[in-house]
């Protein structure tokens, strides 16, 4: 069985393709000119809230906008 082409440097460092791709996309978005930059960043904005559970009960959620 032939092995594939040399493993990319980000994979040897423990990063997955999705993480690599998202980092690249973020870097490109940060280098855009003004109206496009705010559009792109607001389009990709994610709202989430995390709550840890202990003893079967949720604790207070920490929200991150």
């Amino acid at each position, binding site marked *: 069985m032939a092995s594939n082409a040399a493993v990319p*440097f*980000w994979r040897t460092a*423990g990063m997955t393709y999705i993480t690599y*791709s998202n980092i690249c996309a973020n870097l490109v978005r940060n*280098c*855009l*000119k003004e109206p496009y*930059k705010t559009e792109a960043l607001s389009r990709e904005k994610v709202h989430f809230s995390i709550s840890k559970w202990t003893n079967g009960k949720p604790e207070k959620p920490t929200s991150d906008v």
Partner: protein
Amino acid sequence: MFRQTSRLLARTTGAATSRRSRAFSTDVPATPAQDSNFIESWKKVIPNIDPPKTPSSFMTPRPATPASIPSKITVNFVLPYASELSAKEVDMVIVPATTGQMGVLPGHVPTIAELKPGVLSVHEGNDVTKYFLSSGFALIHANSVADIVAVEAVPLDHIDPALVQKGLAEFTQKLGSATTDLEKAEAQIGVDVHSAMNSAITG
């Protein structure tokens, strides 16, 4: 799975040992919306129940590989949030594959190429439209359809050169001072992306 049934059943009656051999997917003709062999075999065994609808009957059949090379390639260029080009017929596309800039003409051998941050140019007659892609994949099929998927793609004039220079300097400096593997990888990615953007706007 059911589409292959008739072919596999015919094979096993011939030679039980050569069950492994399957036709290459590149030789497959246009897929029919309903497999008539399967329906016939079903009706012979279970005449009272309607044959199930297989997923392939819901899909539009794969277009056949034409006998002669078509004159234009059909490009579908999609992003997660928008479809930039949808079934557009063009003369040539140049994609930034990890192995280098790859020109795709009609009749190109079927390829799956991983893309690196770089410039995608679409050539139609005398017009060339260029986009900077952050990363993605290009799938070229036997029937001269090219599907290009990218996470982020911007026309070259949306890129701000000052920010690119700033980013390049920042990441080159981070690359020098990085300690862990992960930091080095991130800094290297930063340098790669920014230098690709730089050569895209200046080149």
